[in-house]
């Protein structure tokens, strides 16, 4: 849709940056609202009966305003996900028992953070330990103790496609020359936004509450929080100030939010919660955490015949959306290939761990990791190059749009194009030759080349509609309101570019408002890489309506035909006659002036709508990772990462590349370093940034990113999401690269993360 001279498609610098670079933009913890501080006392036992909680000493500590347990701060238990049995709802403050390390037992409110911490340390809890389990495979054995009273097992949700009766009576591998299998772990990860969770609750007049929260979705926090406070959503004003990263785990309501709001309402004064990192590592939802047993049947020529997947997904102690994410894995399990038969079954399993939630990719990386790993194993078994087995099986461009046998409604794609692009960009054949040379020389620095092709779903799970409003102000500037919730993506910049392109109002004169339930009528927030295609399209459509009205008005004022009115700089003008123009400020005045406005025209230059693109969009791409593995130490060094990602038509390439970079780093981190770990008693052992191996700049190379552009037909911008593609493509590429480096030694698979210890251990078994 971008015409020549359009700002769209250009690398426009961000409007957001000056305030972030000078430290003047406010995150919730920076707000000076005279708040007192809450600190939570969390369970140090993974599973136990609470025999007693002694709070008397804490109450007497300096500055303490309140010490709350389930005995004196009543709150209903909270449902983690609608499909989960309400018997597993979580009491915000633990009642009779705790179920994971981090469960909240008490809340202490004091004048200052330090006073609250001092007081919290005076609280004595007497526990009677219960058997605890953090092993998802052990949790479904017959001898496993059932975590939830009244449940018959630890399985809380399951999905199967096709239904198990069919799966049990048919063979998905008929015609296969070979069936390969592997147990593939997609390990538990922590989101680690640099700003942890937190909020400030400010009681107002007549029962109202203002609630600043670090979130990806202010409206859903309002709608979920209000009933837990017995409030009308209208009385609850939720807004996100600047948010320091989200990555999925900040997409929903936390029980901490409820407790903070209750404390503020009870005390009648503003209360703040500032989550500390050690707390964040056990309290913020984790991601991934699936064990995927995959089998793939292929013919000798590389044709895929069928796929069977048996998946265990860990939900944590209080099941949330993580219990449902295997359904997205199932939906994407056909990946980018023509796979005639897929048998998929997943069980979601409760363990004594932190709740699992959506984390950058959320269900789709798991599918890609599984298919790309098992496909590589099949390629190796039949002696075919990984690039060629992929090429052999790709869904072809003329097959789109198509609905897969797993129910994904793919919009568009050209997988061979992205494969060819990444093979050229990586100089794949030269890499293979170098690998051969090193192998022949028995080089201690073993080269590994990993390839992955992916498709993912953006604006998934019905999140393909969004609110947007465009309004021309009296001074000729514009204000846009959107239901998305920016937290680093650069929405202000991107959406303002759309207004500039449509109306000729400089993006600097566009005010972007989001994440505020009073200023924005409705919203579904930012998650699932949905923002540009939904809210961006809403702004496009709303601006278009404003433009049409502006043209009618300008035509009337300039005594021209509306068809001859074109967009100028901050103005509308007669085509070819720039002198005959009327500024947006003049138009804004005229539209409310009965003597100027046509009699059949309403006042006001604004339009709001909900744009619905009807379905999700499906970005795709191919990545190549090149690693060097030290045969002596097992250390893996990522030498290069080359990504070709297709997110449809690109609006601002600078923002797109930034998303690719960040996604790639997080994906590589899963392949090589990160893992939330528990010991045999379900104690977390990676609950800080010293033990959890989030990479620094020194661990990573610069990335080689590029794009193909295959427009989505589902929205006027042609856009697909880019927020998660980097993560989805890079993990299997890097994982395959490590396995590839070891394959000539007879090592067929190594679990992620491919740490020096894991690789060294595998090498010792050779």
């Amino acid at each position, binding site marked *: 849709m971008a015409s020549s001279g359009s700002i769209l498609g250009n690398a426009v610098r961000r409007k957001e940056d000056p305030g*972030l670079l000078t430290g003047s933009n406010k995150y919730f913890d920076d707000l000076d609202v005279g708040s007192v501080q809450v600190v939570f006392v969390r369970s140090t036992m993974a599973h136990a009966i609470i025999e007693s909680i002694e709070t008397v000493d804490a109450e007497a500590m300096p500055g303490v305003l309140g010490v709350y347990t389930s005995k004196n701060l009543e709150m209903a238990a909270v449902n983690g996900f609608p499909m989960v049995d309400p018997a597993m709802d979580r009491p915000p403050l633990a009642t009779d028992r705790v179920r994971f390390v981090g469960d909240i037992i008490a809340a202490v409110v004091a004048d200052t953070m330090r006073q609250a911490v001092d007081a919290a340390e005076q609280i004595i809890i007497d526990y009677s330990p219960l058997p605890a389990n953090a092993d998802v495979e052990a949790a479904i054995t017959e001898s496993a103790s059932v975590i939830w009273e009244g449940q018959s097992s630890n399985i809380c949700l399951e999905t199967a496609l096709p239904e198990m009766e069919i799966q049990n009576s048919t063979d998905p591998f008929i015609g296969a020359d070979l069936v390969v299998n592997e147990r593939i772990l997609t390990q538990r990860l922590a989101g680690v936004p640099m700003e942890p969770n937190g909020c400030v609750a400010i009681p107002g007049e007549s029962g109202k509450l203002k609630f600043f929260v670090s979130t990806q979705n202010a409206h859903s926090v309002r709608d979920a929080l209000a009933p837990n406070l017995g409030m009308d959503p209208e009385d609850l004003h939720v807004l996100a100030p600047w948010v320091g990263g989200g990555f999925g785990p900040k997409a929903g309501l936390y029980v901490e939010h409820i407790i903070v709001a209750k404390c503020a309402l009870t005390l009648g004064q503003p209360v703040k919660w500032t989550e500390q990192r050690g707390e964040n590592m056990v309290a913020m939802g984790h991601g991934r955490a699936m064990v995927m047993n995959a089998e793939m049947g292929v013919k000798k020529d590389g044709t895929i015949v069928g796929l069977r997947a048996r998946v265990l997904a860990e939900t944590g102690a209080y099941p949330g959306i993580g219990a449902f994410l295997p359904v997205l894995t199932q939906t994407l399990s056909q990946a980018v290939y023509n796979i005639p038969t897929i048998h998929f079954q997943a069980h979601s399993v409760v363990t004594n761990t932190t709740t699992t939630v959506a984390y950058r990719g959320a269900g789709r990386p798991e599918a890609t990791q599984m298919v790309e790993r098992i496909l590589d194993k099949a390629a190796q078994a039949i002696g075919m190059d990984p690039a060629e087995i992929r090429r052999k099986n790709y869904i072809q461009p003329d097959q789109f749009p198509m609905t897969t046998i797993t129910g994904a409604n793919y919009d568009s794609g050209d997988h061979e194009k992205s494969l060819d692009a990444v093979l050229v960009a990586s100089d794949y054949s030269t890499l293979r030759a170098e690998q051969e040379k090193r192998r022949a020389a028995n080089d201690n620095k073993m080269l590994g080349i990993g390839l992955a092709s992916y498709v993912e779903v953006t604006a998934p799970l019905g999140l393909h509609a969004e609110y947007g409003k465009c309004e021309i102000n009296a001074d000729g500037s514009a204000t846009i309101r959107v239901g998305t919730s920016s937290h680093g993506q650069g929405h202000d910049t991107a959406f303002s570019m759309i207004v500039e392109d449509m109306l000729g109002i400089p993006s600097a004169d566009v005010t972007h408002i989001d994440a505020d339930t009073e200023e924005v009528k409705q919203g579904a927030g930012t998650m699932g890489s949905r923002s540009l295609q939904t809210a961006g399209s809403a702004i496009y459509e709303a601006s278009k309506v404003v433009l049409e009205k502006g043209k009618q008005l300008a035509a009337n004022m300039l005594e021209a035909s509306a068809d001859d009115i074109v967009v100028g700089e901050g103005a509308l003008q007669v085509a070819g006659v720039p002198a005959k123009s009327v500024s947006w400020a003049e138009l804004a005045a005229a539209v409310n002036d009965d003597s100027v406005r046509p009699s059949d025209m309403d006042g006001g230059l604004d339009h709001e709508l909900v744009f619905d693109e009807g379905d999700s969009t499906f970005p795709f791409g191919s990545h190549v990772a090149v690693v060097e593995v030290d045969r002596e130490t097992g250390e893996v060094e990522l030498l290069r990462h080359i990504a070709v990602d297709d997110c449809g038509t690109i609006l601002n390439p600078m923002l797109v590349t930034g998303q690719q970079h960040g996604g790639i780093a997080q994906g590589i981190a899963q392949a090589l370093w990160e893992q939330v770990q528990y010991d045999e008693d379900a104690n977390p052992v990676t609950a800080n940034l010293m033990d959890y191996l989030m990479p620094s700049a020194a661990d990573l190379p*610069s990335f080689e990113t590029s794009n193909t552009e295959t427009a989505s037909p589902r929205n006027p911008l042609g856009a697909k999401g880019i927020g998660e593609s980097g993560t989805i493509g890079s993990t299997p590429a890097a994982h395959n690269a490590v396995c590839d480096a070891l394959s000539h030694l007879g090592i067929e698979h190594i679990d992620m993360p491919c740490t020096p210890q894991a690789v060294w251990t595998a090498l010792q078994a050779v």
Partner: protein
Amino acid sequence: MVLGGYASSFVLARDEKGDTVEISVTVNGDTKTDEVEPRTLLVYYLREELGLTGTNVGCDTSSCGACTVHVNGESVKSCTMLAVQADGQEVLTIEGLAPSATELHPMQESFRENHGLQCGYCTPGMVMAACSLLKENPSPTEIEVREGLEGNLCRCTGYHNIVKSVLACSGQDLL
């Protein structure tokens, strides 16, 4: 330990007498005199007493570097230092880096030009660390930039554009 380290590791043991100590610190050119608890970390003095909230806190193990400031011209993680240790010292925070309210420091400008930030939470610390890095090594290689910023974590950018920003600020176009 009731909190098991999940909330309290950033708060040092309380002085039972609740005494405070007077300190005098020059922050962004202004000398401030305040009474602080001896256990107060420099970062909380800056944020809570002086209202300089541009310096962020991202962890409680001195791992992330979000709180990096300059003390006497050298970059310091302000969570690793007590406010009382800053007595008589000169501290520069992100709020004091730009030459004026309408101009950015060249490093800030370079981060903006090269999209070296997304959510912005690590940015003040990253920029302060980067300035210190170039002061010590005005023409670093890419590897030297990466190793020089090892103590500052970012979750958004994958570091690519941060490294690019620092190299560009050094007058090098290497990426």
